[in-house]
């Protein structure tokens, strides 16, 4: 009998860790991994809240989010490969062709 709030709090912690990772890491692949952490944190929140609500709908939504994550991963990694072929680098500091 674990309070659902614990899960929810954990999801917030993970989400914030994901944000930190996104800003701290310097290589593109790990930055993307950090985004995946954020998505998973949100999934955990969903499932926790679904449990609290006693409705399975939240779990179905998580199913969709995982699908989306997979699709994003496919395109995202393709883009990272594309950039790697062009620049022979996947460091964030090398993405400075445009001032911004």
């Amino acid at each position, binding site marked *: 009998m674990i309070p659902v709030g614990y899960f929810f709090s954990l999801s917030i912690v993970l989400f914030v860790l994901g944000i930190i990772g996104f800003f701290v890491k310097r290589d593109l692949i790990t930055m993307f991994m950090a985004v995946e952490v954020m998505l998973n944190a949100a999934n955990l929140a969903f499932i926790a809240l679904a449990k609290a609500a006693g409705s399975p709908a939240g779990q179905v939504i998580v199913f969709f989010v995982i699908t989306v994550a997979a699709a994003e991963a496919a*395109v995202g990694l393709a883009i990272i490969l594309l950039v790697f072929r062009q620049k022979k680098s996947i460091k964030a500091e090398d993405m400075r062709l445009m001032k911004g």
Partner: protein
Amino acid sequence: MGIFLFFLLAILCVGGVLGMILSKNQAHNALFLVFAFACLGGLFGLLDAPFIAAVQIIIYAGAIMVLFIFVIMMVNLEQGISPEKKKWTLGLSAVLAVFLLVELGLAVRGMLGSLGRTGGPSIGSPTELGRLLFTDYLYPFEITSVLIIAALVGAIVLVKKKEKE
């Protein structure tokens, strides 16, 4: 027992993510992440979502992370060791993160009590999820097909080797 398992998995999961953030080797990062996601799958199980737990492990730990590792292999591991950001950006992001965490935590604190506890009637049976998927959530389910087409086309067009002449 349950609460012990929760804390174990939670600590392992957070540890995995921290490992990903702190390690400088991309391959290690990916492994840390697989580990964290597997723990997350366990947490899903604790939350009465066995089906999602399985999906999490199969798709995330299995498919997506393999894709990551695959790409990491392709882009030459030596690339991975890159200088970390300057000290002050690190400090700044830490401060910001703590701020965000405190803020979200404060906001969430009030509603934690109302969420109840695990246990009680089971909600996440695969049968139930399957039924929902093809009734209430039929439209989103169909949209995912479009989504996957888009992802396929996008990925292929970006990395296919040569134009057919």
